[in-house]
């Protein structure tokens, strides 16, 4: 086995072009489990942890650019105010030791339907910035997940960063698992309200072959909030709206039965999480007005 340790991003891209089958390793929290259990024996490992610039984030025009090496711990420490949904999801990942190593890009690389970063990234309309020696490609997050544990990266591409706008409204994340620490989600749900554009982001994990947006639910809620003038009035939500939103989120799912839960349970849990997070987010939105007026 070869172990490549590029010191710069250009070297990493050149190495990936030369060895398209090289397996990138960042935090190793997915890759090493596979190697330890002999599930994979890559001929070439490509270590990305020496490239300092990857571990940084920075503002990038209207968006934030989160480098591929940014860990969950770093994201929670630095960006909880600007990316509350992603930070909430990050707090539920593994344990402190896992969050100290695991990266958002690694979550994208694995593209597990249960990855916790996916629902907030979908709800935020994030963009994956992929690089290769051929150039730069911006992949909209909705086009990134192509199948169970498969993504849209070409063999010679590496994730350089994720681009996501900072929150312009309340965000929420909820996850159902079997215990508090170290749970792979049974289902997870992320919600982002965007008052600026009058749109809604709603997405779930572990309830379809890929993480997925609940498009009908998003459109329904955005239309309802506009038609009733609630983006401006911030009036209490109609309970029927909340119920319908939950039902539409559940309808978007196509879950399976597995050891972590049945399909029926997942669908039910999703509608409950969607309703709850909507109420929390709306309460937050109403409270913010009080604060700005005062």
């Amino acid at each position: 086995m070869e172990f490549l340790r590029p010191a710069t991003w250009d070297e990493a891209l050149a190495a990936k072009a030369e060895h398209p089958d090289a397996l990138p390793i960042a935090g190793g929290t997915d890759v090493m489990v596979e190697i330890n259990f002999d599930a994979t024996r890559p001929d070439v490992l490509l270590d990305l942890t020496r490239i300092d610039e990857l571990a940084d984030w920075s503002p990038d025009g209207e968006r934030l650019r989160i480098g591929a090496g940014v860990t969950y711990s770093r994201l929670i420490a630095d960006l909880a105010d600007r990316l509350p949904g992603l930070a909430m999801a990050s707090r539920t990942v593994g344990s402190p030791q896992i969050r100290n190593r695991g990266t958002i890009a690694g979550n994208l690389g694995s593209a597990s339907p249960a990855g916790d970063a996916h629902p907030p990234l979908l709800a935020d309309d994030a963009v994956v910035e992929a690089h290769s020696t051929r150039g730069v490609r911006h992949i909209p997050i909705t086009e990134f997940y192509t199948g169970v544990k498969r993504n849209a990266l070409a063999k010679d591409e590496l994730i350089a960063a994720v681009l996501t706008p900072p929150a312009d409204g309340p965000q929420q994340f909820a996850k159902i698992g079997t215990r508090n620490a170290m749970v792979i989600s049974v289902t997870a749900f992320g919600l982002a309200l965007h008052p600026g554009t009058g749109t809604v982001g709603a997405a779930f994990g572990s309830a379809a072959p890929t993480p997925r947006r609940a498009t009908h639910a998003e459109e329904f809620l955005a239309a309802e909030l506009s038609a009733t003038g609630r983006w401006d009035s911030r009036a209490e939500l109609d309970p029927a709206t909340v119920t319908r939103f939950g039902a539409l989120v559940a309808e978007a799912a196509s879950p399976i039965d597995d050891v972590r839960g049945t399909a029926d349970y997942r669908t039910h849990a999703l509608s409950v999480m969607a309703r709850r997070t909507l109420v929390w987010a709306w309460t937050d939105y109403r409270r913010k007005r009080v604060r700005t007026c005062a």
Partner: protein
Amino acid sequence: MKCTVNGRPQEIDDVWEGESLLYALRERMGLPGSKNACEQGECGSCTVYLDGTPVCACLVAAGQAQDRDVVTVEGLADEDELHPVQQAFLDAGAVQCGFCTPGLLVATHDLLERQPQPSDPEIREALAGNLCRCTGYEKILDAVRQAATAKAEQ
């Protein structure tokens, strides 16, 4: 493969760089303090500092530790005096079979560096990645509280 472990330079040959740092520490450097119980990041018994950050050594590729600074449980004590965190675990009866202890010691050491007087929820959160099958967590919580007090009195 070269790195620093507990302040001493280490150089080992014949490492398969895809093997875990845990394996390299235990089997190649003669440092069996960090324990191997799950090899999948679930139990925390292999917790070590990597460049000052607590991580599961079983999930770090040996090749990733090249030129890095590693501190294991063996590096916590002074010459012949236990670290207050170690003493507190003994005094509180938080050690039974001891398998989980090295990882808990490193995780507790880190917690008290960041937060010298942690609340109970902070302790639980900091140790959420460390499993113990024997003692029950009450004694472990006691030990962390005692360690915090002992460190404050130093």
